[in-house]
């Protein structure tokens, strides 16, 4: 018991979220309980509208749960905190800042300036292989490059938890595969607790140690699937029988939920 407790990075306890809209109440999340271990890579899948993003926003502190709590390192989450970094699907780069300035933004807010900030920014810009684009503005970058900048920006403030909301959802298949392997490489080098939302089942299995399947409205955790495929995972992993079995199973569950939504 005690040993298990020690490793828990994020504790999601009975989280419920109700949105009040013109059409009355909408229960987005209903009693979500989840423990995420330190440095664990979690992927969340589920049909649109199952509350995945709502859950991520609550963990990030951008939304308040209607009831229930989230704990990070045993401390109750109230508002945002730099120990919990977020990567958004829409990149959310500041268009008036160059690549370097974007990556330095969070450091400057922490009072880290000048050479130290530049050095730290450079480390992560190199990590995402954009050192040739330091002084480019976001409008001059492709979608994949923009998301690399966003990842570098999140890493630069050194969060222990990385929350990613369908970060590769808007990218083409090749770029997505490329960024997936880059993300895994980084995660293996610099361990962080990752909470990654996707609707792509392949992506979830190739990345995660655990895949969380969420049910349709109101959002609940339907099943937690352990992915016991050893890292490093490659494109060949996607051909292995264990991968295909998992894919079959998870896809079936998600599809079932998708049909529920349509009813």
């Amino acid at each position, binding site marked *: 018991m005690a040993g298990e407790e020690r490793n828990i990075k994020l504790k999601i306890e009975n989280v419920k979220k109700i949105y009040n809209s013109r059409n009355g109440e909408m229960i987005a999340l209903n009693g979500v309980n989840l423990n995420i271990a330190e440095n664990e890579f979690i992927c969340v899948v589920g049909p649109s509208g199952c509350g995945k993003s709502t859950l991520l926003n609550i963990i*990030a*502190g*951008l939304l308040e749960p209607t009831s229930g709590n989230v704990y990070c390192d045993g401390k109750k989450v109230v508002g*945002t*905190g*730099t120990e*919990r*970094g*977020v990567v*958004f699907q*829409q990149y*959310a*780069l*500041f*268009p*008036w*800042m160059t690549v370097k300035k974007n990556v330095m*933004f*969070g450091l400057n*807010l*922490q009072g880290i300036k000048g050479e130290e900030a530049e050095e730290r920014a450079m480390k992560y810009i190199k990590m995402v292989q954009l050192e040739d684009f330091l002084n480019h*503005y*976001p*409008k001059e970058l492709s979608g994949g490059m923009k998301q690399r900048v*966003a990842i570098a*920006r999140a890493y630069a*403030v050194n969060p222990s938890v990385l929350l990613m909301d369908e970060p590769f959802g808007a990218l083409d298949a090749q770029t997505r595969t490329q960024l997936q392997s880059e993300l895994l490489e980084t995660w293996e080098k610099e361990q962080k607790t990752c909470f990654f939302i996707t609707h792509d089942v392949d992506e979830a299995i190739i990345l995660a140690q655990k895949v969380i399947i969420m049910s349709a409205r109101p959002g609940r955790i339907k099943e937690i699937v352990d992915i016991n495929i050893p890292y490093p995972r490659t494109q060949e992993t996607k051909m292995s029988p264990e991968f295909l079995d998992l894919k079959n199973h998870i896809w079936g569950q998600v599809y079932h939920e998708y049909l529920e939504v349509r009813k």
Partner: protein
Amino acid sequence: MKEKNKGSKIPDKVWLLISFAVAMVLWYLLSLNPKTARSFPNIVVTIKATQTMLERGVFWKDIQSSLISVSAGFVLGFILSLPTAILMAWYRPVRNIIEPWIQFVRNIPPLAYVPLVVISAGVGRKPQIIVITIATFLIMTITIYQGVINIDETLIKAARVLGATDKDIFLRVIAPATLPFIMTAVRLGASVALTTLIAAESTGASAGLGMRIRSLNNSFESEPMLLYIIIIGIIGITVEKVIKLLERKLTGWQEKREI
């Protein structure tokens, strides 16, 4: 995305010359046609009218007076519109109370309320500035307000998760994100300031481009009238070019730009 006409071999500057030549020919034809000749005196006599106005000692005075009214009205309009727009975007009650009236007054031609302004403010410089201030304030408030409410909310979220306080968000995210809209507002405001000039100077002004056009109208002197109209146009396009240049310098990072 960016579309540049690479098919055409004629450079833009040459096109500008061609456009200018076409206009000159058209002007010349209008000055020959007996039906339009009185409104469109030919280019030579129109330019010569400069001499007449200089001799009367009003030419520079008129330009100076108009520029003072336009600049003062514009600057006041801008100073008032910036906080109003931000408050409107920030606080729902402010928006709900003010916005309908801005839309309401915006559609009334300034010429209509000039007499009322004169009744309270008297004649001279004051009512001119008031009229231009009102007109520029309305257009700039609406434009900036639209900009502030259209700021991409994920930018604010992204700043917040990186540790930004409310003050950081205002200074480092909202202010720069609004800058393009402020520049657009400045451009539209400058244009409105000039187009409101005639109305503003119908307040019993003693000098000014708009006032002079009206008084020349009484003596049917179409040459200086046309000259003054062209001067207003030249001032307008010069101001616009300068603002556009500034816009490109300050907000060149933008993905796309319209209006």
